């Protein structure tokens, strides 16, 4: 305990000295730091904050020091998180690298892959995207068809991926491909390739919100060296499931970012109080119910982490994803109900767009129905 206390004090002091004032404010979506080759920092402070945190490896606190990570224990990482949130520090890096493929490379990758990819991930130099879903492989992800033909020292990949988040802005892709067509489900490998490779085309998909966070990605005779396979060839489904667990856990925290005002503050500002109560009595109770559920969910994320020795939260991630995404949808419902027609004008920063976008939360990363299947089969043993 004493060690942790010391660590907390040191951390607090370091943050006090090194976190720029402008990085201790509410972060609008547009100022998220994604990193990558072509990334334009929105301010010098944003860049400085990333560099300082990356230097300590605190963009990936629990990654080993030898690859540039923070080398922190789980308890230390929790303390760091608490101290960051105590000063409402912005996340220095939003990254599919540190959240998704990094942990997978650490767990399943060769030493060479670790040395090649992890430092760049931790420093935010390479931005990653995920090539999973295909037009005919959504909920039935294992039914994917992107084909990798074995050419000896490399594969030639052909196929189409869909719902690739920010493929058009990413540097590398981790991608599920079929390396053995003789089996219906299985024969899948996880491969890494540069998005600049010949034959890779990313086409943004316009959503009902009018924005395009996802792409269709066409893979046309893309060459992938065999040393860029994570884990064993044909055994990628194991790693895919591991990554899906990570993704669920990440999506379980969707919308859970420091905000300028709480939901009830925003509702109160829009609607006003009457006799000390929010003037819309139905919305008032829905709001209270949301806040209670939100806190319950937050506590559950914490409890599951406390209970789990391993880095991953396992099957509980299905529940966290299921509930977290519903909560974000409910948040967006409550916000547009609070703001009424102000939220309905079709401006660039309209709440309507965020509300529409949130409808996808319970679809992406495995639909709610898939999460319920996972829970009923793997946890309850039904089916």
């Amino acid at each position, binding site marked *: 305990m004493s060690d942790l206390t010391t660590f907390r004090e040191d951390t607090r002091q370091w943050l006090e000295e090194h976190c720029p004032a402008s990085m201790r404010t509410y972060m609008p979506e547009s100022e998220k730091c994604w990193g990558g080759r072509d990334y334009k920092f929105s301010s010098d402070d944003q860049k400085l904050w990333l560099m300082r945190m990356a230097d300590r490896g605190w963009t990936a606190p629990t990654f080993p020091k030898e690859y540039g990570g923070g080398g922190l224990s789980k308890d230390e990482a929790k303390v760091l998180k608490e101290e960051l949130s105590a000063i409402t520090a912005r996340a220095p890096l939003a990254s599919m690298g540190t959240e998704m493929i990094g942990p997978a490379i650490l767990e399943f990758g060769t030493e060479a892959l670790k040395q090649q990819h992890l430092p760049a991930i931790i420093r935010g130099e390479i931005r990653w995207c995920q090539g999973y*879903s295909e037009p*005919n492989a*959504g*909920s*039935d992800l294992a*039914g994917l068809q992107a084909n990798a033909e074995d050419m000896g020292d490399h594969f030639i990949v052909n196929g189409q991926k*869909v*719902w690739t988040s920010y493929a058009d802005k990413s540097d590398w892709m981790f991608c599920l491909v079929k390396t053995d067509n003789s089996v219906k489900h299985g024969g899948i490998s996880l491969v890494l390739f540069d998005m600049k490779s010949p034959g890779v085309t990313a086409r943004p*998909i*316009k*959503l*009902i919100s*009018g924005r395009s966070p996802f792409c269709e990605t066409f893979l046309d005779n893309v060459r992938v060296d065999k040393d860029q396979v994570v884990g064993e060839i044909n055994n990628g489904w194991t790693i895919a499931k591991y990554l899906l667990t990570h993704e669920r856990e990440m999506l379980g925290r969707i919308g859970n970012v420091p905000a300028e005002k709480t939901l009830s503050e925003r509702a109160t500002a*829009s*609607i006003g109080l009457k006799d000390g109560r929010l003037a*819309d*009595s*139905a*919305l008032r109770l829905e709001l209270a119910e949301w806040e209670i559920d939100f806190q319950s969910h937050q506590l559950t994320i914490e409890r599951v982490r406390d209970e789990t020795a391993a880095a991953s939260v396992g099957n509980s991630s299905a529940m966290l994803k299921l509930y977290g995404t519903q909560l974000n949808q409910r948040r967006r419902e409550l916000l*547009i*109900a609070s*703001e*009424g*027609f*102000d*939220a*309905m*004008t*079709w401006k660039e920063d*309209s709440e*309507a767009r965020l509300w*529409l976008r949130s*409808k*996808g939360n*319970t*679809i*992406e990363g495995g*639909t*709610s*129905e898939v999460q*319920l299947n996972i829970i009923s089969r793997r946890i309850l043993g039904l089916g």
Partner: protein
Amino acid sequence: MQLILNEEEQMVRESAQSFLADNAGPSLLREIRDSNNSLGYSEKLWQQMIELGWPSLLIPEQFDGLGFSHVAMGQIMEQAGCHLANSPMFATAVLGVSILSKEGNEQQKSQWLPKIAMGNLTLALALDETARPDPLNIATSVTKSTDGFILNGNKSMVIDGQIADQLIVVARSSGKPGDRQGISLFVVPRKTAGVEITSTLIMDSRITANISFSGVALREDQLIGTIDQGMDPLTSALNVANIHLSAELLGIANECLHRTVGYLKDRKQFGVNIGSFQALQHRAASLWSDIELCKSTVMAALRSLDESAADASLIASIAKVKACKVAQLATNESIQMHGGIGMTDEFDIGFFIKRARIAQMLFGDHRYHLNRYAELSGY
């Protein structure tokens, strides 16, 4: 009360169904949106509606209308929901006509109604001043002048305000915001000195207006009904509006169910139609049941307008609560069951959730009407 359509109403329904299936739909709406059409609707479609006599449906025969029932008009509104058919119909031929034919004096009726019936006049109700509807919250003021009134104030979210020839303006002639007493209604031509209209594009690709009135001079004969006594006729008109919006929402909900069931039969995952999964079956069945209940309330509410039922406010709130909740469930479930493709702009289902939400909010969402229902019921 007969909860089925009579022959005339059935005929209107079938004609609306086939006409709008052929001439409207999400593809037309997409075209309007993508061409930055400044009306927010298709002028051609509107002209066709006029040819079909739709604007004249609720107008009494002595003013050159068809004198059909609200039930008949409700069938058109429902089909307009199914086929996302934007037009000035609702603001002019439902809301405007209801106010004029009930509250207008003979002179006003003969001046306006025949023109509306011919498709030569459009109306808009300038009511809301805040982002959340509340008809009592009126600050726009009229004050007596030597030969009439002076109007000052601001209105927002005026449906069809950007194109209407005449505005029906809800203003306060006495009292303060929140009072039932002291509301008055006026007809104001859009082209009047001191009236300024700006357009706002809203989520469902319609266009609404913000309107400001600065020292607008009104004559006595622009007053509709009695001075200070406008709240009751306004309430009646909003009951009519909410019941017809409920019909539109029913149409949207039903269309969403229909499209979703079609997709469930079509889309394959895990080697089978996703419609073979019982969890989805039960949700679709539950949605269908909710829509059945909604159908009955909408039908009864429309019929009660025709029978001038005494408890129209209660019935309107019942219909709106039910329709809002069912439409919300139907649109959400339809996106969820379509999965990723339902989230894309290329696919049509998104247009329905957008339109539904606007119709839900207009003149009070389900929360507003749930509270209103309890209030009217004395608890």
